[in-house]
């Protein structure tokens, strides 16, 4: 695939998020597992880095939020929220998410954030009391 094509495909995927006539579960956007998986499986570095930026943003958002939520809701909230063990590397996170999407094709219609969270909960042996 030519670079122009790659850039265009990636842009279509990211920018055209809400085409009215396409049902929500069939859209390929980075916001759902299907789109995220497509980007991770793509061989272009642009697609991979876009997926990486989204996954790490999501993980940053989940972890950063946790401190404030603990103050608001008490330690009970720890049981439901993701904890990344110290020393975890970016490469591990990307690999875990990619493998989870590969292993659960039926779940790819779900929001990417839910799938990212679930993959990391399972990989780190945490019990998911909230489901996904």
């Amino acid at each position, binding site marked *: 695939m030519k670079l122009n094509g790659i850039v265009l495909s990636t842009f279509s995927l990211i920018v055209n*998020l809400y085409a009215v006539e396409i049902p929500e579960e069939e859209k390929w956007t980075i916001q759902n597992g299907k789109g995220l998986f497509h980007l991770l499986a793509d061989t272009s570095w642009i697609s991979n880095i876009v997926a*990486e*930026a*989204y996954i790490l943003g999501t*993980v*940053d958002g989940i972890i950063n*939020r946790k401190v404030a939520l603990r103050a608001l809701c008490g330690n009970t*909230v720890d049981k439901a929220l993701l904890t990344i063990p110290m020393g*975890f590397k970016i490469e591990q996170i990307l690999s875990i998410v990619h493998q989870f999407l590969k292993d659960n094709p039926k779940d790819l219609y779900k929001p990417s954030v839910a799938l990212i969270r679930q993959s990391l909960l399972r990989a780190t042996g945490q019990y998911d009391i909230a489901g996904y």
Partner: protein
Amino acid sequence: MTINGIVLSSIFITNILTAVPNDIEKESRWIGSGEVLMEMLQHPDANINMFGNVYIRGVASGLSYNSFIVNWMAEASPEFQNRVKRGLLLKLPDPVDWSEVTNVVYQFLLNNPETLELPSVLLIENALHEVYGGIQNENE
């Protein structure tokens, strides 16, 4: 995209990737500080803009999903419900206008240049709180 653009993008991204620490818990490590995020959003290369935009979407999704989980817990447990202060959880509009979310963050960065040295994840959170509500920090 020109070769120049590709080379610039690669250098930019390599710099970001090699400049960050390893432990994921410490701070936003991929995009780093608000200065880096701002630079990405204002960069003439559309790909660099896109990385910044996508990172913001990821952070916003992570933040709002945690609020969703807490709400779910509150509905399932009356005891826990008492601990959750209603109206203080971040709630993005449904459906989310991602262009609006990105613009909210960009405007916040423009209006608060003195905060750009802070981790971008914190700045994104503050920007979203200003517009969509929610707790500001652990002391509130």
